[in-house]
């Protein structure tokens, strides 16, 4: 006897089809809360980890505070992958409505027509103008006469310290802050004192295989001499070799195996400081949140001025308008509103360690109470970005080339003079190459 199926195959398929159709229709209807009026804004950024979580919070807050727009962020891996994708999207003219770039990378994009300029007047109408930014940070947004990026923050290279270890080493002043030092010798002495009280090394500094890390410290020390590197297009690099030599030799002195480990990569340096085995840590502000989560007795300060001029390597996460062939005016106007909303609400961004670029945020009393952020906030006044050129900037080949040229000086004690000559030669090769995004040169 053939058993009778309770539901025939045809019935089953019909039922499944109906269910699928219903589900598809339900998906198309969207959420009633999302609203019919909110215009979607496509936003690409490169912020992951703790920064990514903080940025998601800022976006959610901005989305919830109004009904005109709904920002949909796309997070891409930072560095080469991000910048390549962004350049290609902009070259095709169908880029997202808004992107975050490092301010130092803008100069490689703007003259090639990969970015659209901001309307300064419209920004001013929304309360975002020159007066509301530190001068160096606002000016960095310009390429020629046009504003191409609006900074969200400044994220300098700083010095974190473990207050317990430093106190034992006797290098704190009466306020519990790191004792002021003003010469390389003083700093070496201070770091040795800290090393004496540390289980590991006095100073954690990870640089192996990381051109950016080497560059950040080098350029901080280089610019503390009151010098900057100039990279004129088609010319040769203008770099003071004596100053470069002093900076590099000082870095070599730090990595003596006592003050700092000779062989330390970035992650190992983080691990050393986060586990309380070192008293000082040379790093970017972006590591602050993870260090706070490590529950350390923590404070932070600017890298001391050792060569006369207060200066610190930094970059800024900055809002840019990747080129669109025919931008929708209403969408673009909402992008301006969104950027203004985020800047004004960027107090939470300080929680991630960054120094908000929007002055009303850092000048508010609440920011003064935010420690240790307030202890290094003045770094925004002394920021030095990468020397402007199409091939420089955060995550660029330039920084990798620098690391490649000097790493063995730090690791193997090689001759710093030869390393500087090597770096100079690489710079000159790059300078001879026209900006590939704008091979004809000039502003587009």
């Amino acid at each position, binding site marked *: 006897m053939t058993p009778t199926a309770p539901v025939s195959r045809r019935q089953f398929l019909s039922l499944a089809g109906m269910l699928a159709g219903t589900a598809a229709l339900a998906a198309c209807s969207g959420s009633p809360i999302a609203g019919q009026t909110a215009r979607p804004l496509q936003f690409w950024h490169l912020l992951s980890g703790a920064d990514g979580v903080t940025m998601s919070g800022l976006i959610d807050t901005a989305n919830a505070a109004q009904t005109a727009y709904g920002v949909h962020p796309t997070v891409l891996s930072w560095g080469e992958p991000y910048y390549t994708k962004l*350049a290609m999207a*902009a*070259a095709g003219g169908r880029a997202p409505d808004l992107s975050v770039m490092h301010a130092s990378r803008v100069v490689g994009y703007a003259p*090639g027509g990969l970015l659209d300029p901001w309307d300064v007047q419209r920004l001013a109408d929304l309360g975002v103008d020159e007066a509301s930014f530190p001068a160096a940070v606002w000016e960095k947004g310009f390429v020629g006469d046009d504003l191409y990026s609006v900074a969200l923050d400044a994220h300098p290279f700083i010095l974190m310290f473990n207050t317990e270890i430093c106190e034992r080493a006797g290098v704190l002043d009466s306020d519990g802050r790191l004792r002021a030092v003003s010469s390389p010798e003083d700093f070496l002495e201070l770091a040795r004192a800290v090393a004496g009280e540390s289980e590991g090394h006095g100073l954690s500094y990870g640089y*192996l295989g990381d051109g950016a890390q080497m560059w950040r410290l080098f350029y901080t020390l280089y610019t503390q001499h009151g010098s900057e590197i100039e990279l004129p297009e088609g010319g040769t690099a203008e770099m003071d070799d004596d100053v470069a030599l002093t900076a590099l030799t000082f870095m070599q002195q730090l990595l003596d195996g006592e003050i700092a480990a000779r*062989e330390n990569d970035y992650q190992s340096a983080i691990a050393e400081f986060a586990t309380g085995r070192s008293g000082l840590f040379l790093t970017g502000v972006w590591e602050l949140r993870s260090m706070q989560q490590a529950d350390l007795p923590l404070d932070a300060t600017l890298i001391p001025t050792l060569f006369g001029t207060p200066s610190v390597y930094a970059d800024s996460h900055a809002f840019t308008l990747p080129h669109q062939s025919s931008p929708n005016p209403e969408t673009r106007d909402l992008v301006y509103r969104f950027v203004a909303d985020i800047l004004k609400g960027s107090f939470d961004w300080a929680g991630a360690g960054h120094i908000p670029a929007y002055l009303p945020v850092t000048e508010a009393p609440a920011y003064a109470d935010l420690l240790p952020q307030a202890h290094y906030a003045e770094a925004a006044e002394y920021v030095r970005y990468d020397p402007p050129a199409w091939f420089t900037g955060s995550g660029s080949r330039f920084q990798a080339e620098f690391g*490649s040229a000097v790493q063995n000086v730090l690791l193997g004690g090689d001759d710093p003079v030869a390393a500087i000559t090597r770096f100079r030669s690489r710079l000159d090769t790059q300078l001879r190459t026209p900006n590939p995004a*704008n091979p004809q040169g000039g502003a587009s």
Partner: protein
Amino acid sequence: MTTTAPAASTATVVTGRPGARVRHATGERRETAAAWGFLTPFMIAFVLFLVWPLLHGLYLSFTDQSLTGAGGGFVGFANYAEALGDPVMWRSLGNTVWFTILSTVPLVLLALVMALLVHRGLPAQWLWRLSFFMPYLLASTVISQIWVWIFNPQIGAANRVLAWFGLEPLAWLQSPDTNMYAIVIATVWWTVGFNFLLYLAALQNIPAQQYEAAAIDGAGPWRQLWSITLPQLGQVTVLIVILQMLASLKLFDQAYQMLGGVASDTTRSIVQYIYEAGFVGYRFGYSSAISYVFFAIIVIIGVVQAFAMRRRGEQS
């Protein structure tokens, strides 16, 4: 020994009835049509994804085309002239050849030794086969991460091993003196399983009777190895060496990932330089020119290899 003629050829010979040739011709046409039917999808894919990009790349190599869409003007042989005078290109090429030499030798010899050991009847053969071949199944991202940990100067296992022997710790991946060797070690661990498998298959194809006959004649294991096994592995060794050289010349992903995308003078391969020129420096024209210089070098190596093999074949 008897052979049976295929049915189709019987049909062509045994004719005599009118119309048989016509039917045969129709069958042949059908077969041809069917063959084209099977071939066409592949041909379309071949032209679209190989022939066209090859020709387009060749065209680009004569332009200053940027990845961002700028430029594109014809520049003649300027890119080739620049490539031939570019020390970074030559250095990258040198690194690639050095890696090929360093990796091919152990990848062939180790695979042979491993296959011989397993074939000779180690206990738990399945376990050895699995463990030798397993790394080959892993993605380059996975093996890169594993070896980044192993080579970590502070906490990695590699320096622990050095410490057992009283040796100083090394910055394996970061020091220009050691990073190429570190990449070779990781690559050998990762890919030796494939060559091992080829050797094992070849070993299993050697008839057991030959060993039995040799044993009766009094040949010991070493004599059998030298006089039976190794000579019969000659052809598969040539195949493995060729495949290995081609694979090693394409060095890129594991080196790029293990060094975190950092351009190291001592490990930058030619493929990485092509990538850097095109996707980091946005210079598509120049990148294409380097690709074609590399292509030409591979063709030359291939031709030399083919001649060498033919001479060897003639001699044998």
